[in-house]
């Protein structure tokens, strides 16, 4: 016998064996005891790689009923003694039909309700409010940090397990987030989709995505990332990023890739820090609006294009406004949910 182990069989079930191993397996299977072994290991492998979770409880109840019917028609005389699954057996034919019909009606209603709420049941949403930064570990071990006013929608069940319904780990991001994605054993891709036609595809890596109304960018810290940009009425574009690359899509939809020596600056918001590199006040106004929900007005001419550089700590819109105003030597006032620079 050649070197046939459980690992060999698992590799075979996954389609990863060489022709030589294939031949060895064939020889190994000539022994009936090994055929048994094949299927024992197949059961074990299948248990660890279920394509879906069949409802065995329901199926068992149905099987019990079916068997009760069978047995009662065969052994009418010894019925009371030889009574497998007795609870089903002693009912009359019509009440049994009635019960089965009721079960199916109930199921149909439940299915209809479930279907109507499919997206609620199938997905769950992680959200960060204005001013809140939220960090969470996903079921597959990946860590996401949501910036303020952002949300991430992920499948409720089976995230990280490869199955038909979900060949990929797919999430939907609105807003801004930082991702630290684990590389799964099954090399399952992790895909971030955004409302503005971006699909970012990785296997395991660290990157941040900003998918706001006014700003869209993807910054890669480490690893490899593939960005697909497919806005309506435009040809789709596919861009591969390397660590330090910063992909930016401006309001006109123009795509540019720059390189940043410090990609981590783009996710400094996770520590309530802002890193500006010649960012104009207009840019900062956008950030304040996105992150804090304040509307920003710039009242002095030429002020909007003045730029700021540096790293600043700020936990709120007012704190940020104070810092910026000081730097630029200007004033500001707050008016409810509005900031006015002048």
């Amino acid at each position: 016998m050649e070197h046939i182990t459980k690992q060999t069989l698992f590799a075979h079930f996954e389609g990863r064996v060489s022709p030589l191993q294939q031949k060895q397996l064939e020889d190994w299977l000539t022994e009936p005891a090994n055929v048994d072994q094949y299927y024992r290991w197949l059961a074990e492998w299948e248990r660890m790689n279920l394509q879906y979770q069949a409802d065995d409880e329901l199926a068992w109840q149905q099987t019990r009923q079916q068997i009760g019917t069978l047995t009662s028609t065969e052994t009418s005389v010894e019925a009371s003694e030889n009574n497998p699954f007795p609870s089903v057996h002693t009912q009359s034919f019509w009440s049994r039909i009635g019960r089965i019909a009721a079960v199916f009606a109930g199921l149909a209603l439940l299915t209809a309700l479930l279907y109507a709420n499919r997206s609620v049941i199938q997905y769950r949403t992680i959200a960060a409010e204005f001013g809140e930064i939220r960090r969470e570990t996903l079921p597959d071990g990946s860590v996401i940090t949501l910036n303020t006013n952002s949300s991430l929608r992920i499948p409720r069940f089976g995230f990280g397990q490869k199955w038909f319904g979900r060949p990929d780990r797919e999430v939907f991001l609105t807003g801004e987030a930082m991702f630290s994605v684990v590389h799964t054993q099954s090399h399952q891709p992790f895909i971030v989709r955004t409302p503005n036609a971006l699909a970012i595809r990785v296997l395991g890596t660290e990157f941040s995505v900003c998918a706001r109304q006014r700003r869209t960018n993807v910054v890669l810290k480490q690893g490899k990332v593939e960005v697909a940009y497919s806005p309506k009425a435009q040809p789709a574009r596919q861009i591969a990023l390397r660590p330090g690359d910063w992909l930016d899509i401006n309001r006109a939809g123009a795509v540019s890739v720059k390189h940043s020596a410090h990609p981590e600056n783009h996710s400094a918001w996770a520590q309530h820090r802002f890193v500006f590199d010649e960012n104009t006040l207009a840019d900062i106004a956008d950030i304040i609006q996105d992150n804090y929900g304040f509307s920003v007005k710039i009242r002095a001419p030429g002020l909007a294009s003045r730029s700021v550089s540096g790293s600043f700590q700020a936990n709120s819109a007012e704190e940020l406004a104070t810092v910026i105003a000081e730097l630029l030597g200007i004033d500001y006032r707050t008016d409810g949910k509005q900031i006015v620079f002048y």
Partner: protein
Amino acid sequence: MAEGFPLHQGADDSPNPFNRPTGPTGADPEWLIRQAFGQSMEQGYERLFRTYYRILCSHAVRYTYSRAAAEDIVGEVFLNFWQNQAHTHIATSFSAYLFTAVRNRVFTHLAEENKKKRVFGQPSDELTEPTESADPQSILQFTELYQRIEELVRTLPPQCQRVFLLSRFEGLKHREIADELQISVKTVEMHVTRALTEIRRTLWFGIFLFLNC
């Protein structure tokens, strides 16, 4: 690390003298089922069902892609098991028996579904009980068949794949898929047809090989 004697050595290096896969409790599931049959037919059967139902459905769906079809097939196999009192006369492990039975029915189902005008030979008569002779090549090739199908589905264009899975796996009607994806029913039908055609082509080739090895 001796690997040559599967019956006497834990091939995965764990202390597992009979080389049995361990269930969640660490005990051999086959042994537990046999114990249960020792108690009573009903207990054994229920244990058998609960141990293998889900696993078999998952395996079947790799071929049928329809959960409903997979569950029908597995349900039939279990019912059949009871009717034949199979536990009193099987010579193989329960898993070998059940997997073979499921695979036989899956094969019949696939052959039925994908009938072509020119048939190279009749698909084998519906086997009600798995036969003892387990041809190594057939076993391996049947496993390969689901890998081929999976590869094919994986490489379908994204929208086509999405539609196919919603239709087949989720069991949605075309109207429901059209609403969900915001496309026309005609487009849905086009995608489904395309996916089925390509699968049929892959399957047919696979089945042909399978029956002619």
